[in-house]
């Protein structure tokens, strides 16, 4: 994350040129698509297509890799937990029972292992488009994009305020913790037990909150004095009219959404298991 707390990377690409609200629509359609299925074939197609889109976005792989590695590790841990707690879950869905590993009562079935793979691919399939949105949309466009897809502008602007003050608030949190640490308050592992450390965080909460409340008051005064909330709507400095490209992508996103619903309705997509 850069100094300003955003992930945005400046490049010249088709997605950088796209309006934030369109990318948001694409993200929503894509997420619905993933939610609608439990089918390895769909997810693999989504991942491949997603990676292709990422390629088009010209983002440096150095920036994207850490997040992909993270989701990979996450899915491994999640699968581990799934296998540990519900080793026969896959079989309940398919109605078949092929034993893979068994120790006493505890049996993992192949159906469950395949289910883990499916689930992991599902999580991974959502990633590319999310990354695309986060890395190619300037934070200045977040709020106006949300507003454009129908979020009330006051709520949308609070997202902008959050993005604006994350670095400031972070610095303040560090400051307060450092000051207390210098007075012998234990925050680090090994300095004290879990209970004590947790209570010590309660100590820093009060100064942190009081100072945040003060900030809220002053910022809201500053905004009031400059006419925030004056009208039923507001315009946005960075917003521009939709281009043909924007409209094309919006239509495509809509089409994908309709397609997803159609397939879901026609075949009632459930867990797809090929090895019966």
């Amino acid at each position: 994350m850069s100094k300003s707390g955003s992930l945005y990377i400046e490049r010249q690409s088709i997605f950088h040129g796209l309006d934030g609200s369109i990318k948001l629509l694409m993200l929503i359609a894509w997420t619905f698509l993933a939610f609608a299925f439990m089918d390895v074939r769909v997810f693999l197609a989504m991942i491949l297509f997603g990676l292709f889109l990422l390629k088009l976005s010209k983002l440096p792989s150095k920036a994207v890799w850490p997040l992909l590695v993270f989701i990979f590790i996450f899915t491994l841990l999640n699968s581990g937990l799934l296998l540990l707690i519900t080793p026969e879950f896959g079989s309940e869905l398919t109605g078949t029972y092929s034993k893979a590993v068994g120790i006493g009562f505890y049996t993992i079935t192949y159906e469950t292992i395949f289910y883990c793979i499916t689930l992991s691919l599902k999580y991974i399939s959502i990633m590319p488009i999310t990354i695309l949105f986060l890395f190619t949309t300037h934070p200045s466009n977040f709020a106006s994009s949300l507003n454009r897809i129908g979020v009330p502008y006051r709520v949308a602007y609070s997202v902008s305020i959050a993005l604006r003050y994350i670095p400031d608030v972070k610095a303040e949190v560090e400051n307060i913790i450092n000051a207390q640490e210098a007075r012998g308050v234990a925050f680090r592992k090994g300095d004290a037990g879990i209970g004590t450390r947790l209570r010590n965080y309660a100590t820093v909460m009060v100064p942190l909150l009081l100072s945040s409340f003060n900030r809220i008051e002053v910022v809201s005064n500053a905004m009031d004095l400059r006419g925030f909330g004056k009208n039923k709507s507001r315009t946005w400095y960075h917003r521009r009219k939709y281009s043909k490209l924007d409209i094309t992508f919006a239509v495509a996103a809509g089409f994908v959404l309709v397609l997803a619903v159609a397939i879901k309705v026609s075949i009632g997509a459930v867990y797809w298991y090929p090895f019966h």
Partner: protein
Amino acid sequence: MNAIVFEDVTFKYNNLDEPTLSNINLRIEEGEKVLITGKSGSGKSTLAHCINGLIPFTYKGEIQGRITVNGKEPGSLSLFAMGTQVGSILQDQDCQFVGLSSGEDVAFALENDCVPPEDMSAVVDRALAQVDMLGKKEQPPQNLSGGQKQKVAIAGILAMNVPILLFDEPLANLDPASGKKAMETMIDIHENTGKTIIVIEHRIEDVLEHGFDRVIVMGEGRIVFDGTPDRLLAEDLLPRCGLRQPLYVEMLKFCGADIHEEDKISVLENTIKYKDQVVTRYLEDHFTDKRPDNRTILKLESVCYRYFKDDPFTIEDISFDVKVGEMLAIVGNNGAGKSTLLKTISGIAKYQQGSMFFEDACIDKWTTKQRALAIGFVMQNPNHMITKSMVFDEVAFGLRNFGTKEEEIDRKVMKALKICGLYEYRNWPVSSLSYGQKKRVTIAAILSMGPKVIILDEPTAGQDYTSYKEFMIYLDEIKKTGVGIILITHDMHLALEYADSSVVLSGGRVIARDYIDKILADPLIISKANLKHTSIERMGRLYDVEDISSFIAYFTRRITGGAL
């Protein structure tokens, strides 16, 4: 035409028992440039709220009398309508700057007015150009200095095209050089647009040197002075109101100069007529420089630190030492590396090169906690440090964390409270203390742990002259117990008056280490470190004094009266 009229205005906040403003009568003409001053709690901020409409719309209370702004009564309008009459620039630049980039922030008011995006660009560019910030249009606030953020804030108000500009303590969070630039920007705008400008500020010298028409002094909710700066400076009103006179005025008065309004001393050059009187006094009187003990407590040797491996060093080759009972000022403008240096000394940031010694022992391997017992650290904002509700508990907190016995805690806490003048308040809740007293609580809390060195970050920030002066007297007491004190500051007055010696930081390096008066007499260092010339130095040059350094030293020490 009158821009602002107050007719017998009295105002009481709902949650207070006494009125904050009493019987205010005030008329400000269109196009005037007015300074409103007063110490903390004098009602100057409340007066500002009455002008920009926060009273009665945001802060509720009982209001009597009649206020009109450009002929309209705020109470009959709305806060938004007031916003089209008065543009306010608040003291905290970070709170004022709500956009994610300079351009966006300037456009904020236009967006709220539903100006179409295609029409905004030209207005934004023009406003940014007016404050010389067009080149930073795309920059996020994190990449701008305090002074630059303030310029953007001014541009944001200019884009609104309001007739009255109201600045609430514009200098409070800026280093002196940036403050000066901000004032110059304001003056430019006044000259080019003829807008009414009202500045609320207790740093009188820094405002008046820019040629104001009129000063209004507030005291206990009333207007105690309303007239020209020349008349104000000729009178003795400022010290009586707990406010600081410009240094050179203090100096003239110390020399017994007979000053009248007609002498127009608000312009420094007009004081040439007192040359003989001042120079004679300077040559006849003697004082000896008190040099501190020569035992070293803390020593830094070529300390270097960088945040990331591939970055250049943020601070480089820092060497200096602190002696027993010495008050050392580390001065430098914002971004010179002061806070990074602070982090390396307290152990929060591990320096990659160099060494530190505490009483001759190398402390490079010491943890933050070990260092905390030897070197105390007082943050700028007391509200960031205070975690307990009672004064005694707050001061005892550190000792309790380190497992000190309760009877010993009692003794140490009482001693620290006495030194800091808080003994009487030991059973009070911290929240009922003033800002200055809270600041002293944080020092007592550090002092009780028995450190040999105390580091204070911007100790006078947010304090008016009265509480600042009081505060420094207590600090002097602490110094006398043999504790070494490091002040980290951009406040030249402070360093000059109280510090024994000084380290000047610029661009992450030490560019000077000397007695403070010598440093301030060196124009090269002043400009390199982006510091500000003091008016005593300017007087010295005006009077053709040969040894400027000793001239500065003499008068600074004389007018503070204590440090000889």
